[in-house]
């Protein structure tokens, strides 16, 4: 643990850190462009030059390892001069088109100019180099070569992370440009990560650009529900709409990255078919009603079937899309309140979905299969359920986030479950299963709920509600709590935190975990 002094502050840091990391631990920002903790060090931007005592020249902080007794000045006159100089150099051929640039507001050129430079340019506008603008370089990425500062983060990403090397630097000197190889535009499932790591407006995302000024966006940390990896994300949203997902650093799950599929998975959650009110089957169409009549209707049906055919005539199918809390709450309701042990999971991925790769993407598109398994809710039980339907033992099914019709196909579904008397479906959209339901209740989608997913490696991570669900939709945990109260008259706390606490107390796999204790990076299951 070497001790060093940065700006007069003596600190002790882990061996092997570079000066940017060490200063960061002391709460001191060393500005940088090319350095990225997830990529190799190239040291080309020269923004992180700092004064290190006993070194004749300024040193780049990114490539300088901490050493015992090192004395570093990040705000000395020499450092300041170098920082101003680098910013001036970076801006002489930059178009300074901030008013029409989508990066404005999250641009490191803008930020550092305000923090470290603030001097008028001595370079006349007419002499700027002209390069390519608004070039479609493939995948979901647009390139503006004039804004590029040639930090080579994007080329290093494709070289070192995906090992596909789609982008390269062409030309020489101040005519250097980033581009793809001739005739070979980017076609990469991780391409938009280069937009994230581009410190300026050179690389922007086709889907996002010009849709929202970034300073209007709020950020809520959460988890991507696109596959069983469960990448840590920030939800960027404004007035109840998600505008983008950005990967959030999590060394134990996704590093700094996420895939483009997951990144765009929010689009499906904002479709026209979102449910906003409880529905019930009225003749040959679905009719809207309030929550109270809906709960009464369902409770009455559960009690009637329970009375006539026994509690075991009521079962539940829980999709591996449900959170740990939702699955646990429904399991409790079915097992304890209703008294049935007929519960099955459903784990289904679209046949055209992408397969496993060696970076992040998983073929299993269900974010919480491992969580269901940890709660003893197995997808294998589905056959037993359909057998009980055939045997006339199972009359009613509560279906949570499980599109059985789509998973099985309509013919197969009707063959196996067509004989059911009653089906209560809790989902976000009027999917195919919902359209066959007797009652269809609107629940909150992932950006709208608190809860947790357990990824395929057993990592339990928190989802956080970014905004309220649309219309009368409620979180599924709340709906299940209300249904429980309707059935037995006992109050239940409809919060994910309370359900998690109960789950941690009751379920061995979750023993010792707490909702608050999951932290930004999550915790591993006990078993």
């Amino acid at each position, binding site marked *: 643990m070497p001790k060093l002094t940065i700006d007069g502050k003596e600190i002790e840091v882990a061996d092997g850190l570079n000066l940017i990391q060490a200063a960061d631990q002391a709460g001191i920002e060393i500005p940088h462009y090319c350095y990225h903790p997830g990529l190799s*060090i*190239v*040291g*080309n*931007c*020269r*923004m992180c*030059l700092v004064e290190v005592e006993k070194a004749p*020249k*300024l040193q*780049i902080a990114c*490539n300088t390892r901490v050493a015992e007794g090192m004395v570093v000045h990040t705000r000395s006159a020499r450092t300041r*001069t*170098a920082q101003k*100089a*680098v910013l*001036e*150099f*970076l801006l*002489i*051929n930059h178009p300074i088109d901030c008013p029409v640039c989508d990066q404005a507001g999250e641009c490191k050129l803008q930020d550092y100019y305000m923090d470290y430079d603030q001097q008028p340019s*001595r*370079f006349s506008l007419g*002499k700027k*180099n002209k390069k390519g603008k608004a070039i479609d370089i493939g995948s979901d990425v647009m390139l503006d070569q004039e804004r590029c*500062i*040639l930090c080579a983060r994007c080329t290093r990403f494709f070289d070192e992370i995906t090992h596909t090397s789609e982008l*390269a*630097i062409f*030309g*020489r*000197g*101040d*005519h*250097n440009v980033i581009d793809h190889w001739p005739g070979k535009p980017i076609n990469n499932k991780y391409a938009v990560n280069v937009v994230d790591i581009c410190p300026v407006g050179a690389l922007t995302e086709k889907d996002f650009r010009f849709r929202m000024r970034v300073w209007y966006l709020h950020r809520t940390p959460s988890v991507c529900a696109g596959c069983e990896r469960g990448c840590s994300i920030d939800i960027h949203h404004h007035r109840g709409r998600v505008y983008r997902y950005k990967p959030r650093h999590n060394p134990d799950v996704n590093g700094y990255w996420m895939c483009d599929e997951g990144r765009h998975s929010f689009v499906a959650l904002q479709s026209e078919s979102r449910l906003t009110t409880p529905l019930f089957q009225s003749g040959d169409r679905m009719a809207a009603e309030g929550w109270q009549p809906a709960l009464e209707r369902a409770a009455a049906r559960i009690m009637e079937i329970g009375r006539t055919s026994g509690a075991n005539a009521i079962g539940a199918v829980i999709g591996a899309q449900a959170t740990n809390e939702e699955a646990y709450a429904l399991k409790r309701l079915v097992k304890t309140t209703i008294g049935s042990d007929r519960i099955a999971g459903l784990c289904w991925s679209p046949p055209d979905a992408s397969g496993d790769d060696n970076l992040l993407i998983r073929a299993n598109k269900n974010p919480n299969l491992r969580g269901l398994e940890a709660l003893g809710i197995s997808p294998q039980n589905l056959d037993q359920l359909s057998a009980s339907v055939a045997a006339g033992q199972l009359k009613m099914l509560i279906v949570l986030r499980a599109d059985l019709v789509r998973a099985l196909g309509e013919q197969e579904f009707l063959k196996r479950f067509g004989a059911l008397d009653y089906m209560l479906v809790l989902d976000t959209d009027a999917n195919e299963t919902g359209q066959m339901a007797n009652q269809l209740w609107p629940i909150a989608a992932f950006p709208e709920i608190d809860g947790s997913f357990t990824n395929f490696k057993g990592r339990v991570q928190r989802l956080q509600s970014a905004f309220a669900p649309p219309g009368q939709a409620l979180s599924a945990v709340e709906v299940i709590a209300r249904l429980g109260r309707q059935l037995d008259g006992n109050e239940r706390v409809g919060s994910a935190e309370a359900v998690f606490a109960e789950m941690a107390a009751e379920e061995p796999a979750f023993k010792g975990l707490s909702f608050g204790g999951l932290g930004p990076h999550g915790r591993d299951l006990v078993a």
Partner: protein
Amino acid sequence: MERILTRWLDIPDIRRLDVYEANGGYQALRKALFDMKPEEIINEVKNSNLRGRGGAAFPTGTKWSFIPKDSKKPVYLCCNADESEPGTFANRYQLEFDPHQVLEGILIACRAVNAHVAYMYFRGEFTHQKRTVEGAIAEARAKGYIGKNIMGSGFDVEIYTHRGAGAYICGEETGLLESLEGKRAYPRNRPPFPAIQGAFGCPTVVNNVETLSNVPWIIKKGADWYRSIGPEKSPGPKLFCLSGHVNKPGLYELPMGFPLKDLIYDVGGGISDGRKLKAVIPGGASFPPFTAEEAEKVMMDFDSVRAAGSLMGTAGVMVMHDDTCMVDVLRTIAHFFHHESCGQCTPCREGCGWIEKLMIDMEAGRGKVSDLDVMLNVASNMEGNTICVLADSLAMPTRGFITKFRSEFEDHVRLGRCPFRDRDGRLAPPAHAAYQEGDHA
């Protein structure tokens, strides 16, 4: 002084192996293989005070001693034949006329650092030189000097040739390594130094052609003999590339510490067109010029030139007479470095272009006096702040020319045109168009 590096002037066919052998060729290699341990070779070269001729003047023996003795990885030797510094043309003659001397140096160096593979990196334009060297390698291999079990010693060395695609930056030692590995010649951050992580991640020595050519002589005649040539700290024979406004431009082998004045007036036959000396750049385009007055006193060795405020670099001595526009010279130098900056580091990528743009205006009479301070400031912002020294290579002449010839720049601003050009912007026709035949190589 006996010619050592330019023996082809005395022995015209020394490029041929039989002639080279007849004149003591490969005897130093024999000595290095059979009579000396690798440490002894390194110590001999260390004691000789041989310093790198590529421009940086780093002690060669010391460089070799940085190679780990017990390296688990292979060790490589790279011969830097990417001679690209403006005004420099020594290596090309050596490769064309005495390739075996370079090869012998390479083989001895390989023995010293225990390298079994050597690469020769030629600049893109050296097609002819590369062919010549490849012929020499084939000859030497046939005689058992290259390949397995050299001269029956059990020591193996394979020499591979590689030609770049023609970029100045490929001559920078880590840019060369990147290029050799098939990548863009972006110079690398140091540490790690090439001695620890060079070509293909393995310990590597990069030495210039001229440096390696000295090695057989040091081994053959000893460090004490070598140190006796020229100044103690910067000894040896040196190839001077004399160009510009002298009557006898060309390649001259002279001892280190040779007076610049004598180089210009005696060896070079004086200033052409009967004009007066105005400025000399002593070491290629990368360094500040000397005024005529300064040039009077300078001795041409690494330390003396440095003490006088410039650097000897590659010893590409460019002489300019009093009808030369210093603004135009700096503009040309700026153009070169702008064109050759690899563009990796921000200050160099942007600064070189900025200075050239200002210099184009300055030379055309569109500049402002305040531009001079901007350029000095830009130069100081570039210098020392980049991965390699290409930025410094423009910063130094920029500062040198502007401070030493400031009035000439101010004249351009005042007149609104170049005083050395006519009103149509044409330079006076070169009266020195026909060079006299000298005894240059």
